[in-house]
């Protein structure tokens, strides 16, 4: 298998933790709420899923617990920011620290233990195509994440729910005046985002690298938040961004495996450096940022 085939085959799986968390953050931000706790929500979901899978609960139950646990933690964020109108940046950081702490606390006795991942499902015919065939051999979560991407895209493009979410994020006062329940919509968006971050963490811990190590999320939650900006709050672009990051993290691995004469620390920081550079390029288009950005993002709602 050459490097191109390796990257193509593994890209989607590597992208999945980014994709799931970004989609969740996208929905939350679209309602006007900036939740910076994604890293901690992912870490918390990851440890819950790992513990359940390790004790034989199975992957389905593991993902369920991760989604529910992280949704519950994001509910705390929602109560503090929506109920008590606290600063969303500070609250998000607090949830992030708390989630990472709980993850380390619960995961302490599982350090370096492993579980079994999930089998890959190959699409007939497509997976036999040379070079790109690997793209069509993925585990079930990857396929479901692709379906979720389509569903969220369709929700924003075609449904009333998508329209209400956008109205609440763009102009909460007007949305409230028309009669939309601003706080309830935001609560739902934040909780959905939390559940998705939980799934993302679960995928990272029990499918992608099914081995428990403290701090295993390693900044992926932050990159997921950055991806929402890269994608300028558009589902399709966020998907492409997640694929790019999946590919970057694999390239770093491939480069290390081929013994490229580059310090391994440079390769480890490659995803962060790419994030910084892309963030600079995309954000410098101020017109596009203003056009696609969420007008009320981060502001508490008072009526």
């Amino acid at each position, binding site marked *: 298998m050459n490097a191109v085939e390796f990257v193509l085959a593994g890209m989607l799986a590597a992208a999945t933790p980014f994709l799931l968390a970004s989609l969740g953050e996208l929905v939350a931000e679209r309602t006007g709420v900036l939740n910076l706790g994604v890293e901690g929500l992912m870490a918390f979901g990851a440890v819950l899923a790992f513990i359940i899978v390790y004790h034989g609960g199975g992957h389905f139950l593991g993902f369920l617990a991760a989604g529910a646990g992280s949704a519950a933690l994001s509910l705390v964020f929602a109560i503090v920011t929506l109920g008590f*109108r606290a600063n969303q940046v500070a609250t998000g950081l607090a949830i992030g620290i708390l989630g990472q702490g709980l993850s380390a606390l619960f995961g302490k006795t599982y350090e370096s233990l492993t579980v079994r991942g999930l089998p890959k499902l190959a699409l007939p015919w497509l997976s036999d195509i040379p070079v790109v065939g690997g793209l069509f051999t993925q585990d079930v979560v990857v396929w479901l994440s692709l379906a979720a991407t389509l569903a969220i895209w369709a929700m924003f493009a075609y449904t009333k729910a998508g329209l209400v979410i956008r109205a609440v994020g763009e102009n909460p006062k007007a949305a409230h005046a028309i009669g939309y329940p601003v706080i309830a919509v935001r609560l739902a968006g934040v909780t959905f985002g939390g559940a998705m971050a939980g799934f993302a963490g679960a995928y990272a811990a029990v499918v992608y690298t099914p081995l428990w190590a403290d701090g295993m999320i390693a900044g992926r939650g932050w990159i997921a938040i950055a991806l929402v900006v890269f994608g300028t709050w558009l589902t399709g672009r966020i998907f492409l961004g997640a694929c790019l990051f999946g590919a970057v993290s694999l390239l770093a691995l491939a480069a290390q495996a081929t013994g490229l004469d580059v310090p391994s620390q440079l390769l480890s920081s490659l995803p962060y450096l790419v994030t910084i550079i892309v963030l600079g390029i995309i954000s410098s288009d101020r017109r596009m940022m203003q056009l696609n950005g969420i007008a009320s993002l981060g502001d508490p709602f008072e009526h």
Partner: protein
Amino acid sequence: MNAFPVSILPALVRREHASLAATLLAPPAALAVAILFNLGLYVLIGRDPAAVVYAMLLEPFLSWASFSEVLLKTGPLLLVAQGLAIGFRAKVFNIGAEGQFILGAIFASAIPVWFPLATGLWIWPSMLLLGAIGGALWASITAFWRVRLNANEILVSLMLSLVAVQVLNYLLLGPWKDPNGFNFPQSVMFQYDAMVPILIPGTRVNVSLLLAFALSIAAWAFIQKSFTGYKLQVGGRAPRAAAYAGFAEGRAIWLSLLIGGFAAGLAGAAEVAGPIGQLQRSISTGYGYAAIIVAYLGGLHPLGIVFSALIMAALYIGGDNAMVSANLPVAAVRVFQGSLLLAYLIAAAFVRYRLEWRRPAHRSPS
């Protein structure tokens, strides 16, 4: 139609004036709530709460030896938090103090690593200065990205912290590794003149604590007395009014980040030139992140931050104690920090709002 038809829940009603009582009560109330919550958690994971309370909350204050360690930890937390608070007040969210701290430590270490035999009184002050410059330089990347490229400073500064950890690892495993260090990822031990002088004999508390207090006073003067400090605050509270009055947003961002980076870099330098005495992986036990909590818990006020830095330092030492005597995992400190900030953010809501029970019918349509 009602937005949120829950008559059983009280509504938050904006106060006419910020409540001073709530401002003063919020931090201790938050601390009490966080203590109760965490004790519950310790019981849940099967630890003896009485032993944890003793080790974590009392022991740091019971002997001079352990209280001096609290003072030692207060220094870096105080420095970093004072710098961050100035930015937070201006609504510039530099959350990358951890990286600026690490770069400060690296810059400071350059002198003893490259000139291990140098002697003289100039060494440790130059190290502190160089460290502060290093932290400010690292923060200036974020400032440039934010001002010139319009990029979100939260994400850029955080990403730079993750990069800083890798830079540190690279130096410790490569060019700066102590050749006689049995392959451990650490630099040479610094010479005597590269160490900040001890302030209180018999302890590890050094002169950098004085520096932290001096800079706290400077921060207070800057915010309360100087025109630039005033402009920064106006920029944070009412950006449009500030822009109208000709206060450039770009300058506020540059200033906030440079001050934050300078203070964090200074703290990092004081750590390697102080209690650690060499560059190694564990130079920061999350000071950069903990300082964010210290800044908020202190109400973003220079005086409040002095108290909150002391509390956070005691928590670190208490956590270490409880790890040994009550078998509490290290992660418990992080859980405590996170829940403390959450509790504070809830408590701080009562500074600006009061609770009022009222029926939805009485609400005037908005």
